[in-house]
């Protein structure tokens, strides 16, 4: 159905462009509105995190090839892969939330987990991070 990728620089303008690209692909593949909405939110969260945290808000000198966004839509599953070469790899699992510090962050992965059926974070090849997210399509989520 769809198996495509997009390379982008680490900037918020590029995040906007990548989201528009992904949504167009997803709609063309016939995803329902709920699934498109979850994709839109997940990409906003994941890509913005990479720009802000992995790259510290500044695009490095990598010739505009800082993030690779992979999008695959099968009949029953949406797969998103976000690869970066920045620092600050997030922890491998959603962190336990510290109730003594309710105002600190740590919501990024928590929110992604709510939007997707599976979220996996692994170290990249030598540097950076690979974020993989799966969402089953057209199923109920009570």
């Amino acid at each position, binding site marked *: 159905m769809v198996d495509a990728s997009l390379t982008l620089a680490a900037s918020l303008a590029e995040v906007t462009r990548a989201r528009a690209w992904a949504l167009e692909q997803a709609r063309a593949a016939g995803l329902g509105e709920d699934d498109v909405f979850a994709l839109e939110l997940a990409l*906003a969260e994941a890509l913005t995190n990479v720009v802000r945290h992995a790259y510290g808000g500044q695009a490095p000198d990598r010739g505009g090839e800082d993030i690779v966004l992979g999008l695959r839509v099968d009949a029953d599953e949406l797969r998103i892969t976000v690869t970066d070469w920045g620092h600050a790899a997030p922890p491998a699992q959603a962190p336990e*939330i510290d109730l003594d510090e309710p105002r600190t962050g740590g*919501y990024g992965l928590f*929110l992604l987990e709510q939007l997707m059926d599976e979220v996996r974070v692994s170290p990249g090849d030598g540097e950076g991070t690979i974020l993989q997210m799966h969402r089953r399509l057209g199923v109920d989520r009570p």
Partner: protein
Amino acid sequence: MTIDVTLVLEGTYPYVTGGVSTWVDGLVRGLPDLGFAVVHLRDEEAPRRAARALPANVCLVLDVDVDPERPGGTAGLHDVPDGAVVHALSSGTAAVPGAALARARGVPLVLTEHGLAWREALNGTGELESGRPPAGARRPAARAEARLAWARDLAAMARTGYAEATAITTVCSANARRQRRLGAPAARSAVTHNGVAARWLQGAPAAGPGAGEGPLFVLVGRVVPIKDTMGFLEAARLVLDAEPRARFAVVGPLDQDPDYAGGCLTRSADLGLEAAVRFTGEADPCPWVAAATAVVLSSVSEAQPLALLEAMASGVPVVAPRVGGCPELVHGAEGDAGLLTVPGDPMACARAMLRLAADDGLRARMGAAGRARAGRRHGPHVVPSAYRRVYERALADRGPA
């Protein structure tokens, strides 16, 4: 009367009708020996008129403006008199002032979330249970960022409440699991089921439509986007194409989101439903439920809806979306009380209505199962007795003052 419980709530009792407001009414009336103060968090300029008569044990209703910058001299939290327990009913933000008040007065905090506001923000619900749209949600360009920021803020506010509360409650185990994932400690968490007023369980089960009449499908709920009234209309059109005698009623106020309600009336006319669908406005749902083939919800988000409990108590089968606490209500040891549908899918909703209309035996079995479950688990006393225990335990855990 001394104040035993200070309720901190938003966008609900005593100003609007709807599930949470009815729940509070049942709580305060079911505990007549306890004195209640109601702290209502206001986020708008216009003064409000109480939609409900207050019982004698509601000693005071205090409007507190959530925007301290706004001129007009409404009360602040420091104006709230002392009570023994603070009970915050959060549909978004009330956990934070509730926690602040409990801490300032050195009293225990009980936190109840019917729906989970951060979840509703992520679901794309255009309106939170409190009636407020998430900030910025209507600006399409900023939609995803605004949603995420709002969901993050709401999650942080809920966690502020979890950190302070001696008891954390919600109305279904689906929500309890999500609260725990967000950090609510299991030892302090409990599920407290909703209950229906006694009149729903008294008397004979509902008779349904009269002999020779077509099926009647009744949506009980405010005409607002979160209930997806528009989707119900689409489903009604599909049912009518297959069963021209079918009739429909939307029983609930039209004034909570006038633009949306106006859109629904227009859509109803465009779909050629004017003769088949009746919008009653605010009305007693009891006679409608009693005459119904099934009570139908098409909501995109629900906690443990009273509309379903009242239908079940009346022995009327339900058609409900697979969201929030609906599956736990429909399935149970007594048997299925109705059919579950996919939210946002009018075809699925229509199929469920037609299936019930066509099968007298199925309808009778589901009606009886629902009535048995409602009688056993959702009677009029479940909420007051559960919260009497919650309050007593919160005070005992805190020890003598």
